[in-house]
């Protein structure tokens, strides 16, 4: 078998590229576990993944990394160069799978003699093709949703007696759902069909599984046909809501033995018949009325659900799958969790897990918040408890959305007393549905009514009602002191000390002390995969109030706890997991016993073998204190991003010990007023600013410093609620809208918004105030684009030596003044009018690892987090001098605008990208082009659409257009743009704007894919006013159409010019196929 023959040979692993909606951190988890499993076998692992912030792209996991696009073109080149013996396609999501299928189609694997390890391509083809899949399932005499094809109204009448209602009519694929509809009777079906058949030659009439339960099984099969289901999961939200958008519970709660094991048997039958080798996931619809089922789909690869199942059960699915792919049988692989039993077993859970997706709709202005069959969430969290209520409320808090639990602020005791007339809230599927259900139950809506409207099983609604009823009871009893029994009951249901305190008019510390007095403390529970049946050596832990003793003895010596990053969200994702994991690995190497606290199932940091102990727990003050109380060890709070950073000052007040910086210093930096005062004292320059106290004052100040102005709250993460006002009008609009999005706990600040300045990210590590290592990355975009959305270049491409010196000197001053001991980041604005006229302004600083730490570490070949951790743990580290490297690294954001149907795809001060990639090149242009191609954009052939608003934009884009012209691009332009270009002797084909209502208009050009790339520069006012006025402008329509048609779109002149220059300098075949190791020698 392969396990023997592959030893010492090369195996290629395809990663999933940038984090995007629908494909996120779970593939860093699966890829890194696969890499680990292969490496143990003495296989040389080569990874292709341009996502530089991932943990898998590291020599701790793989032998060689290619930061190149996961596309057939590049992967073929790599195969040609490396000549691997085998390839893994199942560990890098749909990106890797699609790339593999295409390579197979082109005969590349055959040509180079590469064997596809694991599930054969023929099986994948069956699972990916709807028709083949249906045929396969029917041949097994199993059920898929009934469907019939209908080409005419005549067909329809013939089908009359065969159709079972309700049905969903699906019109032609290219119409984007136009013409679809649900019919409950023949009359309605006729109506829909008539309309749809007018638009498309044929319609599919499919059985509509309205309000059926949605159930998933994770199935593992080895090459010898041994098959198990590791876990099943039940969706809280019934069919119709994408499983990535659903609240998911494991194990299933409402299934009987027959239902559970019948579906399990079917799952195994399907997987064996395909067959799959490794891991896959199968989705079912199950009727709540009679237990009938339909098979919806099979994913013949590791998926989001398998990552969740892995964390839910403690069964290392990806690791095991990789071993199976190499030819091991399940029974010869040991169970890593118990260290006693084999991998051939099905975990028995003695707890419940609840997963809740995290949406960031607030960040995407103008977005409609309805959840449905398409994935839009950007991250997820998981709560573990011994009751559904406990797990659910933990998960809610883990979302980091300021919810204390399912009882929202709208049910605050003082709000409900006012005796206002109550109106039930909407229970349509939105991110708020959960809280609204609790709200409505509180005010008397019957759970039967909620069930019939939402399809959510009564079981779940009863559990929610249980929480609500208990809350009501506490409110009714709140005139008296809380009873011991009530407090114990409340904690078992997942209420926080803060919530209880509010009800009983106390503060949370008093409740906490009362709990300690009455010995109402959460106990440490082990996740041992076998329900306590055998003793197990597991370090996978959670806390529960349903226990009377701890499963382990906490509080060993020489421990250090690291707070992870929490849910992935816009502005905080895999890069902070990289930081947290590297911090843990470093501390372990130094001989410390490490503890990881995190609540995100998509991470590597929550893998069983990363830390000494893993507390899969909420990152809240109460819970971290609970853990500190028993483990009694210092914390590292500076590597997990903004969530731990925000917690730090609160933890400090409770006398929790930290490694790294004094938590009071964190406040000095995060509180803008204090920070600004510090800068003044240090004589460091900063943009003019003022704390906002009243609307009138704010407008006055804005007038004084002149528009545009930047408004931002303290403790911002990824620019939440940040805004640039270009005029009094838009500022007024912002002020009218902002009350709901600004947290009154922290002050709001207005500053002068500087246009045309260069922006720089300064990442460094200090020891006792002295900078040990630093990196200066320059943004391509001018200031005004959020640094998370900006294109970062390292080393800088345009800054003078003088600027470098000045930046360094300012940073040194700040580091010294704050006695920084650990990682930090400062953002600068640079005005270089001439070598003698230089202005260096500090915009903000963070006393923690920043988003760009993995980027700078990997580009320079020095692990900043390793150094920072060593310093925090007291090691004497000497300053490291970095020479300017002879290559460039460029980091490019990835946007998931395609997934967000109405969002205007432009860049603002608020961050909107969901992920990033970075590539290397011998110059700036090569690195940039590779990175851009890594975001899923294809190399343009020969045409472009141009539409520039205003003379300034036209002028700024002229150089790019000239190059395109020279390269022989066919140019389409709107009237004014075209006329402008004609003045410079550039010919273009005229197209109408949409409002001109004539054809061909811009949208026709885009929809017919006549243009390979779109350049659209809009007036500022057009973009920012839209956020408030909801006007639809031509610019918006062009941008949106480009995104929907998957055509590259450029809305910034800086980037547009860079892009065009890069194209000019590098044709596709000139981009070098070089591994990370060929550029960088790690130190």
């Amino acid at each position, binding site marked *: 078998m392969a396990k023997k023959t592959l030893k010492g040979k090369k195996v290629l692993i395809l990663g999933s590229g940038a984090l995007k909606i629908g494909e996120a951190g779970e593939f860093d988890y699966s890829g890194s576990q696969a890499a680990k499993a292969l490496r143990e076998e003495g296989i040389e692992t080569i990874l292709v993944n341009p996502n530089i912030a991932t943990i898998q792209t590291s020599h701790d996991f793989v032998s060689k990394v290619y930061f190149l696009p996961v596309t057939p073109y590049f992967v073929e080149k790599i195969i040609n160069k490396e000549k691997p013996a085998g390839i893994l396609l199942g560990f890098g999501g749909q990106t890797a799978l699609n790339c593999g299928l295409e390579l197979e189609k082109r005969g590349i694997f055959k040509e180079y003699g590469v064997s596809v390890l694991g599930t054969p391509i023929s099986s994948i083809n069956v699972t990916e093709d709807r028709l083949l899949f249906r045929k396969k399932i029917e041949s097994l005499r199993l059920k898929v949703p009934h469907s019939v094809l209908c080409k005419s109204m005549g067909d329809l009448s013939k089908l009359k007696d065969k159709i079972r209602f309700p049905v969903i009519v699906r019109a032609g694929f290219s119409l984007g759902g136009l013409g679809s509809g649900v019919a409950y009777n023949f009359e309605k079906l006729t109506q829909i069909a008539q309309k749809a058949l007018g638009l498309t030659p044929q319609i599919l009439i499919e059985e509509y599984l309205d309000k059926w339960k949605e159930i998933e099984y994770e199935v593992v099969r080895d090459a010898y046909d041994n098959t198990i289901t590791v876990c099943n999961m039940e969706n809280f939200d019934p069919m119709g809501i994408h499983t990535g958008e659903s609240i998911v519970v494991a194990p299933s709660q409402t299934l009987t033995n027959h239902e559970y*094991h019948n579906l399990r048997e079917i799952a195994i039958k399907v997987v064996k018949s395909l067959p799959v080798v490794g891991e896959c996931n199968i989705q079912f619809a199950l009727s709540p009325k009679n*237990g009938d089922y339909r098979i919806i789909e099979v994913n013949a690869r590791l998926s989001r659900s398998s990552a969740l199942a892995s964390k839910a059960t403690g069964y290392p699915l990806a690791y095991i799958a990789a071993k199976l792919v190499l030819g091991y049988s399940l029974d010869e692989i040991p169970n890593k969790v118990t260290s006693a039993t084999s991998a051939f*077993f099905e*975990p*028995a859970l003695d707890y419940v897990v609840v997963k809740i997706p995290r949406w960031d709709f607030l960040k995407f202005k103008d977005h409609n918040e309805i959840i449905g069959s398409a994935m839009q969430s950007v991250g997820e969290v998981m709560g573990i408890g011994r009751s*559904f209520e406990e797990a659910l409320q933990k998960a809610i808090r883990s979302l980091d959305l300021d919810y204390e639990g399912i009882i929202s602020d709208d049910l605050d005791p003082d709000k409900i007393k006012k005796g206002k007339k109550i109106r039930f809230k909407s229970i349509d599927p939105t991110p708020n549905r959960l809280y609204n259900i609790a709200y409505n139950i509180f005010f008397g809506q019957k759970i039967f009514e909620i069930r019939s409207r939402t399809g959510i099983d009564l079981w779940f609604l009863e559990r929610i009602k249980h929480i609500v009823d208990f809350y009501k009871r506490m409110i009714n009893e709140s005139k008296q002191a809380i009873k011991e029994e009530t407090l114990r009951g409340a904690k078992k249901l997942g209420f926080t000390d803060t919530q209880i305190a509010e009800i009983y008019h106390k503060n949370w510390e008093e409740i906490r002390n009362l709990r300690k007095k009455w010995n109402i403390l959460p106990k440490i529970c082990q996740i041992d995969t076998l329900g306590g049946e055998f003793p197990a050596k597991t370090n996978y832990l959670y806390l529960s109030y349903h226990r009377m003793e701890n499963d382990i003895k906490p509080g060993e010596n020489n421990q250090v706890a690291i707070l992870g990053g929490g849910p992935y969200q816009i502005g905080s994702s895999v890069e902070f997991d990289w930081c947290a994991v590297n911090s843990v690995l470093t501390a372990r190497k130094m001989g410390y016993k490490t503890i990881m606290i995190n609540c995100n199932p998509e991470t590597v940091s929550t893998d069983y073998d990363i830390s000494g102990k893993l507390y899969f727990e909420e990152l809240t003050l109460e819970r971290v204190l609970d853990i500190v109380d028993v483990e009694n060890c210092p914390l590292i709070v500076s590597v997990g991003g903004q969530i731990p950073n925000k917690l730090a000052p609160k933890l400090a007040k409770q006398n929790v010990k930290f490694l790294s910086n004094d938590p009071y210093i964190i406040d000095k930096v995060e509180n803008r007023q204090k920070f600004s005062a510090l800068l003044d004292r240090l004589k460091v320059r900063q943009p003019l600013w003022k704390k906002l106290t009243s609307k009138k004052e704010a407008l006055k100040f804005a007038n004084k410093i002149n528009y545009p102005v930047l408004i931002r709250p303290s403790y911002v993460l990824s620019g939440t609620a940040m805004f640039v006002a270009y005029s009094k009008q838009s500022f007024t609009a912002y002020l009218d809208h902002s009350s709901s999005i600004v947290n009154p706990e922290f002050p709001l600040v207005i500053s002068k918004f500087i246009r045309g300045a260069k922006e720089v990210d300064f990442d460094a590590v200090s020891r006792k105030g002295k900078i040990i290592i630093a990196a200066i990355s320059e943004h391509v975009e001018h200031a005004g684009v959020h640094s998370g959305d900006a294109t970062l270049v390292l080393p800088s491409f345009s800054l003078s030596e003088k600027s470098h010196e000045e930046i360094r000197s300012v940073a040194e001053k700040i580091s010294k003044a704050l006695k920084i001991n650990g990682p930090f980041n400062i953002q600068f604005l640079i005005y270089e009018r001439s070598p003698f006229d230089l202005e260096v302004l500090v915009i903000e600083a963070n006393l923690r690892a920043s988003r760009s730490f993995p980027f700078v570490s990997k580009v320079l070949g020095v692990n900043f987090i390793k150094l920072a951790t060593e310093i925090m743990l007291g090691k004497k580290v000497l300053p490291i001098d970095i020479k300017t490297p002879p290559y460039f690294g460029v980091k490019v954001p990835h946007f998931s605008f395609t997934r967000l149907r109405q969002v205007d795809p432009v860049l603002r001060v608020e961050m909107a990208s969901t992920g990033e990639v970075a590539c290397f090149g011998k110059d700036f242009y090569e690195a940039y082009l590779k990175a851009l191609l890594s975001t899923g954009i294809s190399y343009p052939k020969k045409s472009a659409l141009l539409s520039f608003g205003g003379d300034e934009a036209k002028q700024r884009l002229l150089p790019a257009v000239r190059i395109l012209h020279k390269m022989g691009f066919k140019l389409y332009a709107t009237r004014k743009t075209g006329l402008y270009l004609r003045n410079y002797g550039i010919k273009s084909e005229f197209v109408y704007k949409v409002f001109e209502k004539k054809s061909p208009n811009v949208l026709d050009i885009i929809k017919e894919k006549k243009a390979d790339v779109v350049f659209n520069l809009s007036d500022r006012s057009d973009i920012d006013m839209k956020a408030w006025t909801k006007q639809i402008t031509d610019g918006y329509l062009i941008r949106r159409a480009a995104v929907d048609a998957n055509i590259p779109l450029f809305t910034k002149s800086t980037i547009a010019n860079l892009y065009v220059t890069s194209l000019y300098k590098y044709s596709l075949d000139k981009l070098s196929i070089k591994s990370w190791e060929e550029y960088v020698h790690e130190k």
Partner: protein
Amino acid sequence: MNKKGYLILENGQIFEGISVGAEKQVTGEVVFNTGMVGYPEGFTDPSYFGQILTMTYPLIGNYGVTDKKTWESDRLQIRGLIVSSYIDNKSHYTASQTLSDWLKKEGIPALANIDTRTLTKIIREFGVMKGQITFSPPIKSGLFFDDIKDDNLLPYVSCKKPSVYKGGDFRILTLDCGLKENQIRIWQKLKVTVIRVPWDYDPFKKGSDLKVNQGLTPVKFDAVFISNGPGDPKQAVRTIEIVREAIKREFPLLGICLGNQILALAAKADTFKLKYGHRGQNQPVKDEISGRCYITTQNHGFAVDIKTLPEGWIPWFTNLNDDTNEGIRHKKLPFLSCQFHPEATPGPTDTEWIFEYFLTEAKKWLKKP
């Protein structure tokens, strides 16, 4: 408010909970099960007769009580029930009553709000642990526990009178040591006629004709099936003797669970008590002949000692968790048995093929079509 109740263990430990079943004091062996579904099936499994059952899955009652036809016998067999959280629900379409209603109706006490994981760990370490459920304030000492180990429980769970379940030409004599109804359902599905007789019914004794439906039927059967059942296999002396005779007469034999141990004892091998019993629906076994692995339902505290297997016998299945025996078979003759429950209910259906496999082997041996 539910009444407080207590579980008092043999070692003096007391757990306080609330009553969700009948308020009746009972004593029994405290055992646990790690299955996540299938409580109606489990609670009616006669192997649990006389036992106080602890469920390690913390939410019990989720889908109420399913129809009687999914039960494994006609009543609750457990003596008492211990759960972490009791869920009072009957919204599932198959539910006719809530679990609490059922327990009360059948007079079975149950306690909720108990730390079942801590309790499970205690039981696991002690092996056999006796306990009492009581609703009066607990007395710390002087508790009397019946000595369950020495009791032969088969008379309590076996059928009292023989009966015949028509299926087809092939007739199987079933020694009912506390069988699970699904075993009969599967035989019938395979077109086999089941002659169900009490655990001590000797078909080889003269005049042992069956009294079925008031008339006398001569005992005629093609094969013998030994069901599962509660307790120490060595207590089933009479059954062992009957099986020994069947071996001698070379009747095809299939044993399940206790039946596996009885077959081993009849073949003059030995059984022993496991340090950690196997109690769940996730037990992995390996077929020693084919190398294939299966997930099975198990509920046993004793195992066959394969070192004592006599000539001609070989291990058939082995547990992958602790390498203990999960089934034996004869090298030449169709004597087969498994320690796990191929009839599942509750649990995975991976090994249901064993029934059919046995039938094929038996027919081959008997040269019957």
